[in-house]
C-alpha cells in the first residue's frame, strides 16, 4: 500500500476542485454530483470488506437503506429534525445491523458468505417491502428534510442544492480520510493480511474473525452514512434502496474503479453513473445493453479498473516503494 500517500494527495486535490464546482455548475449538475458522491461513498464502504478484506458482501444495500428508513421513521411530518441526532441514530442502526449480520455471516467462507449476506439483505428488503412499517412497497416520504442548525441558527441549508452538495462532499471527504487512515493502520494491514493468507495471519496471532467483524461493522456504518444523505437528497425512501440489485450495482462500481485503492470505487461510481446518463440520452431504448457492454469491456481490458487509465496517464498510483534500506541507498546515490 505504498501508493496510499500519493492517493491521499490526489484525493485532497480532487476534493478541493469539487468544492469549487458550485461556482461554475448549474443546480442540476450539483444534484447529480451529490448523487455520485453518495453512491460512491457506499461503494467505498463496500470496498473496505471486498477489496481490502476479501469478503464479497451482497447485503450492503440493506445497511444503506436501513439508515434512510431510520431517518424517514423518526422525522416529524411538519418540522425539521436535527441532523445532530438523526444522523448518529441512522448510522448507528446500520452499524448494529452490520454487527449482527456480520457476526453470523463471517462464520462462513467464500461463496457461502456471498449467499448468506444475500439472504440477510433480502430479509431486510422484505421487512420493508411486505409489511406496513413504512408504506410497504410504495415507499415513504420524508416531508421535511433534517436541518443542520445550532441554537436556531441554520449552519447549512440542506434544501438548497449548493448547501446539500457541499455537505455531501464534506461527508465523503471525511469518510475518505477515515478509510485512508484505516487501511494504512495496523488494523487495516491485519485485515489485508487475513485476506492474503488467512492461515498465516491466524498463526501469527491475529484474531481474524474479530478483525473482519470490526471491518464489516465500519463498512456497514459508512454505507448507512451514504444512505442517510441519499434519502435526505431525494426526500423519499423505498424498499429498492435495500434490495440486492443495488448491492450488486455498487459491487460493479467497486470492480470498475479497481479493488486495490480507497478512492477507486468513487471513480467507479462516477464512471458508472456518468455513462448511464450519457447512454440514456443517446440510446433511450437500449442504454442498459450498451452500459453492460462497456462494463464488460472495461473488466476485460482494464483488470485494474478505470483508474488504470489515470495510472497510464500520470504514472502508477499503486507502486510499492521498497522499505528501509533501498531508500537509504537511493539517498546515498544522490549524495555521491
Amino acid at each position, binding site marked *: 500500500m505504498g501508493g496510499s500517500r500519493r492517493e491521499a494527495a490526489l484525493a485532497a486535490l480532487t476534493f478541493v476542485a469539487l468544492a469549487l464546482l458550485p461556482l461554475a455548475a448549474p443546480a442540476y449538475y450539483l444534484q447529480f454530483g451529490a448523487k455520485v458522491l453518495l453512491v460512491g461513498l457506499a461503494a467505498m464502504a463496500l470496498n473496505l470488506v471486498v477489496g481490502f478484506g476479501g469478503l464479497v458482501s451482497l447485503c450492503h444495500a440493506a445497511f444503506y437503506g436501513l439508515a434512510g428508513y431510520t431517518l424517514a421513521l423518526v422525522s416529524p411530518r411538519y418540522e425539521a429534525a436535527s441532523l445532530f441526532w438523526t444522523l448518529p441514530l441512522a448510522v448507528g442502526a446500520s452499524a448494529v445491523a452490520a454487527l449482527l449480520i456480520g457476526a453470523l455471516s463471517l462464520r462462513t467462507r467464500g461463496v457461502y458468505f456471498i449467499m448468506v449476506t444475500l439472504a440477510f439483505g433480502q430479509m431486510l428488503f422484505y421487512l420493508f417491502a411486505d409489511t406496513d412499517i413504512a408504506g410497504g412497497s410504495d415507499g415513504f416520504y420524508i416531508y421535511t428534510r433534517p436541518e443542520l442548525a445550532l441554537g436556531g441558527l441554520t449552519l447549512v441549508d440542506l434544501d438548497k442544492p449548493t448547501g446539500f452538495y457541499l455537505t455531501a462532499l464534506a461527508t465523503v471527504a471525511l469518510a475518505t480520510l477515515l478509510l485512508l487512515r*484505516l487501511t494504512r*493502520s495496523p488494523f487495516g*494491514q491485519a485485515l489485508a493480511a487475513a485476506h492474503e493468507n488467512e492461515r498465516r495471519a491466524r498463526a*501469527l496471532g491475529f484474531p481474524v474473525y474479530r478483525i473482519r467483524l470490526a471491518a464489516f461493522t465500519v463498512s456497514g456504518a459508512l454505507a448507512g452514512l451514504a444512505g442517510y444523505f441519499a434519502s435526505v437528497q431525494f426526500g423519499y425512501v423505498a424498499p429498492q434502496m435495500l434490495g440486492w440489485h443495488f448491492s450488486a450495482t455498487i459491487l460493479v462500481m467497486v470492480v470498475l474503479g479497481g479493488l486495490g485503492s480507497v478512492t477507486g470505487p468513487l471513480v467507479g461510481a462516477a464512471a458508472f453513473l456518468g455513462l448511464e446518463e450519457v447512454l440514456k440520452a443517446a440510446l433511450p431504448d437500449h442504454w442498459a445493453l450498451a452500459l453492460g457492454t462497456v462494463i464488460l469491456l472495461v473488466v476485460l481490458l482494464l483488470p485494474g479498473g478505470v483508474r488504470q487509465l489515470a495510472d497510464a496517464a500520470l504514472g502508477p498510483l499503486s507502486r510499492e516503494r521498497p*522499505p528501509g*534500506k533501498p531508500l537509504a541507498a537511493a539517498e546515498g546515490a544522490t549524495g555521491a
Partner: protein
Amino acid sequence: MPEPALLAESLSKRFGGLQAVADVSLALRPSEIHAVIGPNGAGKSTLINLLSGDLRPSAGLIRLGGRDATSLSPEARGRAGLGRSYQKTTIFPRRSAFANARLAAQARSPRALAPFRSADRDDAVNARARAALAEAGLLDREAAIAGTLSHGEQRQLEIAMVLATEPTVILLDEPLAGMGHGEAQRMIALIGRLKAGRAVLLVEHDMDAVFTLADVLTVMADGRVIAQGEPAAVRAHPAVRAAYLGHEADAAA
C-alpha cells in the same frame, strides 16, 4: 530439568475410522530441540497441527506455558507464545520480505490492531522485524518481494516471521523439505540457533539433520509413540530399528 514450555498429554485424533494420533505425550522444554520422526503416515503432521491448534484433539490435554491450551484457537496460541512453520511455505507472497516480518512483529505489538496510527511508522515493530530478518539471515533480502525469493529463502522468511512474534515455543514441520544441500546446511545452522531460550519441535525426514540437531527424540509409527528419549538411546531401541530405521534399510537395499 526446566519446566516444559509446551506439554501434550495423551493426545489422540481420530478422522472417522482412522486413528491418526493415539495417546501421544511429549514435553517441549526451553533451549531444547525435540525432534519427531517416523515413516510417512505416522501422524507427525497431525500431531503438529494438534499442538498449534489447526486441529482439535479428540482426546487429551495441551498445556502451553503452564496453562491449559487444549481448546484455544491457533491465533490465541500464537498470542500465548507459540509460533510455527508449515510443510508448505505459508507467507504473504505479494509483500516484501520486510513487510512480511513487519506484519509478524505487529501481531505481537500492544498496538497490533490500532486503527488510526500508521502501520509502517512504528519504530519498535520495525526494529523487531529487522532483528528477526537478521537472525534468520535474510536482512540483505528485505526489499525483495517474498514470492520472488528462492525456496530456501522463503523458508528462512517463514522462520523470520515466527521469530518476529517472539515465541517461547517453535514448531517446525519439515523445514528442510525440497532444499538443496547448501540451503539445507544454512537452515540446519539456523535451527540450531533457534533453540536459544526457546523450545523447538522439529518434524523432519532428513536423519542427518535430526541427529545433528535433536536433544530429545520421539519416534512415531501408526499414530503412536514407539520410543522417546535421548537420540543415541532411541537409535539403539529395537522397536525403532524394526519399525522405522528398518524402512530406510529396505529403501536403500
